[in-house]
């Protein structure tokens, strides 16, 4: 990138700058004409110059064209107009010139805006492109949020400046010069006064502004660090809470904000001081004009028209001048910013552009072995972690690498994966240095997985297929206005030197899939096989079952869910296991559900607990009153309260028993106690409205088989079932909308898929019921093929920023699945499963090896193990000690030898 922003702009927008300059030059002609016109109007028709008689006329618009050497070629004598007519005509010309001037302004401004936006796009892309090409060492010291703030915010002013970079000084300079010359032509001395004032402005103001620029630079750096710090706290929020350092972070941010405030306040003070001075200088000049010009006019050496014209012209002088000074300040300002940004992104050993050139389709490359040649790697402190290591790995080998002391094996794997660059020696894929090969070879022939996984915000599926998105494979089809839009996108991208690859095309290359079915490149089956291999399928089913899917967006799924529900109910009946759960039926009281659920007979979006809009609404209680359930509910609530007070009275608030009852807190017990005491032997009518409501809430959460208090009698159950429909109809529409009523044949959008399928309540008493139901449901869903549909829903699960909605173990499994789904010749696993327990680790490593061996290209698998006992699953074992290979051979051989390996394994 160029050292100077003006040069950068000039190099990338030269033809456009020249064009807009020409336009600006052209716009000067009408501008200058419009300056002279007022004088003509005043001196001519208004003051009567040339119209001494009532009938005298003047020619209007007469002109002649004379060319040098050729002489006179054409002349127009003009129209002969009277005084009034001339006034109208001249005013008309004035209006015409105003329109022309503004037309020019409009065109120039739009043109400049577009120019600036294009340059901004170019520079932003260029910076991002550089980030992608940063060498690993540089990347370690980079703050994500800082880079983001630079690319997003700090370059923003460059765009605005681009349009003005050359046009502004030309146009404003021209205007100022024109006004200046005009004044000078009218009267030399008045001109000199104006000129003197201009000189003061041009010399003094920029000097004062230098301090402003320095402050601006400081502001930029502190703001960038603030962005970095905020990003850091967000990323490390877990650590902050774990160590109770939130107040330390508060102090840090407050301090930074204080610094920024101070700098900004300084900037304001200076800015307004400069403004004050500027305005003062601009307005002191007219004072001199009035005084000196008036004096000259009175003396008769200047006519009134001239004076007015000078004052008029001067009105146009401080404006451009001020803007010119502003421009200069903006130039210095963006130059400083540009240097700052440039320094950050100017890195010596950036990878070359050709390394990352896009390559469509399968790249054939002859690389039958991966080797390290005399490889040395340093860590950040400069200590050697790998010294002069050479090793050669052929196709089809399974290699376990183990560290005794040091981290040589890890360092070697990282170098294979291009995560670190060696300080000496090289890694070769075939006969080429892996760092010189294009990434379209090294990034496809070799899959690298380490424990530090990163995921992009999106669905599970997007992340699983991420490693297959090398280039657009099937371009998107566009028609009509979309096609026009796409053509425009391509054209604009090219104009800003951006690539025009279509992000909406299909990037998933099914030729790159590991295809365990020998030839049949089927993404779906590979995906399922990979998920099974890393044992992630169950988790994905859980995601699906726990999610709520909008029925309108997926009618087929909703239909199948209902069909699955029926099938499950049938099967349970067939097996004679109806005691496992109680389905929702319109004319039966569901004993395993709460009284509230039985009353509403539907799913609410919010759970029916304390903060529920439905329960806070007066209409709810009115409806209850209308169907005659209010009194029985209050009385039942009182019964429950009596029991609760008897059981819980006097228990400390932290008592574990409170956890047993979800709707109960120690405060509530005290409240119930007071209500009961106040009521004494009186009837429940004596309670105030809030007290009655509190009793009703207690009733609504009650489940008889769970709490066994014996307060729910058969007649109340019958009444609830009978009045369900009536109650619903009594509710106003906005409350009705909060309830999605149970209907055997309908899908519920408010409920999770699990609730939708079960459509009932699992029996509380039956300890094994949840497991048994899950087994039955699992079997049926597999038989019905519903299982795949569930998986599809699960794959759409949004994993959150950086995959934060997944557990650590799930992330590691996903990380592994994402790699084995790609077809590679070499797979490098660098302690990819550190958090897993030993048994699971062994199962997954075995399955991954089996899975990859099914591939027809005979891939090599290298695994850096943290658990040395797993090395028996591999053909070859490489033992590292203090950054050197100490043993290398078959597992059996090394076991027999009396080396480090045999002592560690034993």
């Amino acid at each position, binding site marked *: 990138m160029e050292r100077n922003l003006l040069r950068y702009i000039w190099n990338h927008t030269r033809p456009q700058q020249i064009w807009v300059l020409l336009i600006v030059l052209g716009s000067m002609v009408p501008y200058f004409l419009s300056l002279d016109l007022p004088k003509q109007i005043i001196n001519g028709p208004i003051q009567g110059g040339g119209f001494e008689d009532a009938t005298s006329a003047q020619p209007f618009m007469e002109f002649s064209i004379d060319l040098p050497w050729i002489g006179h070629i054409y002349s127009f004598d003009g129209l002969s107009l009277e005084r009034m007519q001339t006034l109208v005509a001249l005013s008309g010309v004035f209006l015409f010139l105003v329109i022309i001037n503004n037309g020019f302004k409009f065109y120039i401004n739009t043109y400049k805006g577009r120019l600036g936006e294009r340059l901004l796009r170019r520079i932003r892309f260029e910076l991002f492109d550089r980030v992608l090409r940063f060498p690993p060492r540089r990347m370690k010291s980079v703050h994500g949020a800082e880079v983001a703030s630079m690319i997003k915010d700090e370059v923003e002013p460059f765009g605005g400046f681009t349009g003005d970079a050359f046009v502004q000084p030309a146009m404003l300079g021209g205007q100022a010069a024109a006004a200046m010359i005009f004044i000078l032509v009218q009267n030399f001395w008045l001109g000199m006064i104006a000129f003197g004032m201009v000189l003061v402005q041009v010399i003094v103001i920029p000097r004062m502004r230098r301090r402003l620029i320095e402050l601006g630079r400081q502001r930029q750096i502190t703001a960038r660090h603030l962005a970095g710090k905020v990003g850091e706290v967000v990323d490390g929020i877990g650590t902050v809470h774990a160590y109770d350092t939130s107040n330390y972070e508060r102090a840090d941010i407050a301090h930074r904000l204080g610094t920024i405030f101070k700098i900004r306040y300084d900037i304001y003070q200076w800015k307004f001081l400069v403004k004050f001075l500027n305005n003062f200088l601009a307005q002191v000049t007219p004072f001199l004009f009035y005084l000196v010009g008036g004096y000259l006019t009175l003396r008769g050496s200047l006519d009134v028209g001239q004076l007015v014209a000078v004052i008029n012209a001067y009105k146009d002088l401080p404006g451009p001048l001020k803007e010119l000074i502003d421009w200069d300040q903006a130039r210095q300002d963006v130059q400083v910013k540009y240097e700052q940004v440039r320094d950050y992104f100017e890195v010596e050993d950036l990878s070359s552009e050709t390394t990352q050139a896009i390559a469509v389709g399968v790249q054939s490359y002859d690389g039958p072995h991966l080797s390290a040649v005399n490889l040395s790697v340093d860590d950040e402190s400069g200590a050697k972690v790998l010294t002069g290591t050479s090793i050669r790995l052929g196709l089809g080998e399974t290699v376990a690498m183990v560290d005794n002391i040091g981290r040589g094996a890890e360092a070697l794997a990282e170098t294979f994966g291009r995560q670190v660059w060696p300080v000496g020696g090289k890694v070769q894929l075939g006969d080429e240095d892996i760092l010189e090969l294009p990434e379209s070879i090294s990034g496809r022939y070799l899959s690298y997985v380490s424990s530090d996984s990163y995921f992009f915000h999106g669905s599970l599926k997007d992340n699983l297929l991420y490693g297959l998105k090398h280039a657009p494979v099937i371009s998107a089809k566009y028609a009509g206005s979309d096609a026009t839009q796409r053509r425009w996108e391509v054209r604009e991208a090219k104009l800003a030197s951006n690539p025009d690859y279509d992000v909406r095309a299909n990037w998933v290359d099914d030729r790159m899939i590991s295809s365990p079915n020998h030839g049949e490149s089927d993404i779906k089956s590979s995906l399922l096989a990979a998920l099974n291999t890393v044992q992630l399928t169950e988790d994905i089913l859980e995601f699906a079952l726990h999610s709520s899917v909008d029925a309108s967006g997926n009618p087929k799924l909703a239909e199948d869910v209902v069909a699955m529900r029926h099938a499950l109910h049938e099967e349970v009946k067939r097996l004679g296991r109806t005691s496992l759960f109680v389905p929702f039926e319109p004319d039966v009281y569901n004993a395993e559900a709460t009284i509230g659920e039985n009353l509403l007979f539907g799913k609410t979006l919010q759970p029916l607990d304390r903060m529920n809009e439905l329960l806070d609404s007066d209409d709810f209680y009115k409806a209850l009153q209308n169907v005659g359930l209010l009194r029985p509910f209050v009385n039942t609530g009182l019964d429950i309260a009596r029991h609760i007070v008897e059981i819980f009275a006097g228990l400390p608030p932290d008592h574990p028993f409170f956890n047993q009852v979800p709707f109960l807190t120690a405060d509530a017990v005290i409240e119930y106690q007071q209500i009961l005491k106040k009521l004494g032997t009186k009837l429940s009518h004596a309670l105030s409205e809030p007290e009655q409501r509190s009793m009703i809430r207690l009733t609504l959460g009650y489940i008889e088989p769970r709490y066994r*208090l014996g307060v729910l009698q058969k007649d109340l159950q019958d009444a609830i079932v009978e009045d369900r429909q009536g109650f619903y109809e009594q509710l106003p529409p906005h409350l009705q909308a909060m309830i999605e009523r149970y209907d055997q044949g309908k899908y519920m959008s408010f409920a999770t898929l699990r609730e939708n399928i079960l459509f009932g309540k699992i029996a509380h008493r039956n*300890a094994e019921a949840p497991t048994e139901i899950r087994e039955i449901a699992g079997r049926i869903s597999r038989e019905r093929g519903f299982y795949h549909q569930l998986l599809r829903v699960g794959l759409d699960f949004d994993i959150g920023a950086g995959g934060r909605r997944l557990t650590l173990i799930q992330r590691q499994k996903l990380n592994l699945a994402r790699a084995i789904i790609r077809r590679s010749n070499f797979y490098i696993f660098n302690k990819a499963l550190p958090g897993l327990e030993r048994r699971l680790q062994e199962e997954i490593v075995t399955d991954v090896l089996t899975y990859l061996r099914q591939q027809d290209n005979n891939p090599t698998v290298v695994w850096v193990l943290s658990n040395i006992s797993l090395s028996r699953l591999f053909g070859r074992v490489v033992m590292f000690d203090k950054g050197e290979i100490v043993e290398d051979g078959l597992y059996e051989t090394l076991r027999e030898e009396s080396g480090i390996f045999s002592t560690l394994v034993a």
Partner: protein
Amino acid sequence: MLLCDEVQLLKKLPYFADMDGCKLKLLAFASERVSYEPGQKLFKQGERGDSAYVILNGTVETILETSAGQTKIRENGIMSVIGEVSLLCDGERTNTVKAVTHVDALRINKDSFSRLIHDSPDMTLRMTRMLAERLRNTTNELDSVKAYQPLSTMVN
């Protein structure tokens, strides 16, 4: 069976005989009512023990699983307490218990139980006495087993 019936039943158990009625109701309320079909397991040998069971109805059998196979140790009926040792000490279940008939039971959770003991010193004393008795019984059984073993194995 309602909570108050359960309380009456618990009261008949020697463990809880002279415990305050309110405390017992609290214990019963905090516990979970569970039922099992014949053949279903209440808990398995080797699992972490986190609760005890009071059999309200039906019969369960205790089985010891060894490498040689399964041995039935004893059968328990209504009003017996199962797996209470794990309420006092952490550790794995030393045997498997499964339902012979339909079984209703009260599952007493470890946290609730230890809190209850914490609150009533009488209870602790009673528990200690019960355990001591069981220890004496077990020791007696062990002694008699040893006594029946042939002399030759003793010498080794």
